[in-house]
């Protein structure tokens, strides 16, 4: 017997999977660099600078076509963060996001902001971080 709570949870996951699948199909066939109908980054629209998430859609498009190098070039942050956080999750097995030691949350914030600053520096190695 599925309770109302479980039913809503299952429905939620089905919705997430369907949306992710639809998004992937769209990203596969329509390159974000060429079509204007994708959501825009407000920070980039307002300032012209790249935010830590800028390039994610183009990276996802490249990834779906198997081009890891181009995906990394558009946004290296997930390639660095996902393996590290995934590994830490497997090793430490926190009960929830709330039970993570605070310093790791602050470190994560530092990495996100630091990456955002570095990729906007107009000097040689950092310009490669700018999509």
């Amino acid at each position, binding site marked *: 017997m599925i309770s109302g709570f479980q039913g809503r949870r299952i429905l939620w996951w089905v919705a997430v999977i369907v949306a992710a699948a639809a998004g992937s199909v769209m990203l596969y066939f329509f390159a974000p660099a060429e079509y204007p109908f994708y*959501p*825009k980054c*407000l920070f980039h*629209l307002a300032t012209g600078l790249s*935010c830590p*998430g800028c390039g994610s859609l183009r990276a996802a498009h490249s990834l779906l076509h198997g081009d890891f190098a181009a995906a990394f070039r558009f946004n290296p942050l997930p390639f660095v963060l996902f393996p590290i956080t995934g590994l830490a999750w497997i090793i430490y097995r926190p009960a929830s996001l*709330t039970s993570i030691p*605070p310093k790791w949350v*602050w470190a*994560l914030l530092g990495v996100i902001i630091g990456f955002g600053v570095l990729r906007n520096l107009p000097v040689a190695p950092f310009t490669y971080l700018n999509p």
Partner: protein
Amino acid sequence: MYKILGTDQKEYGPVSADQLRQWIREGRANSQTLVQGPNSTEWKPLNSFPEVGDLLAPVASSVPGPAPGYVGSQPAADIPNYLWQSIVATVCCCLPLGIAAIVYAGQVNTKLALGDIPGAMRASRNARMWCWIAFGIGILVNSLYALYFLGRFAQGFSDAFQL
């Protein structure tokens, strides 16, 4: 009069001692539930109130935990910090407001580590609020952008066919 803090992070009360005793009997409050006593603004676990102590022991042993949706204590790890939502809001919706949400998410963990449960709940509410604001602004501005783009498209279309 007493006020109690529910699993939904809302305050209930003020209620009389009799009503509080009723809630304990119904399993809506247990020894770990945070309560504000008469003439006090400090949140303390219910088991530090001797006036209802006679009810707590049997309730605590017979009811392992409050049923979902019931007013009752909340294990510290269950206070949501909305961390992943904050990060998604930061990289997808609105950078400055998303950062504010991540800061509140971090405060949830910091305050819990210090044992400040009401403070952690406040930070949790703030993290949720800033996630929603960042998300709302992202949707709003992108909708306006889509309208502008549609307008441009319609203009180009009518120009092309000299309508």
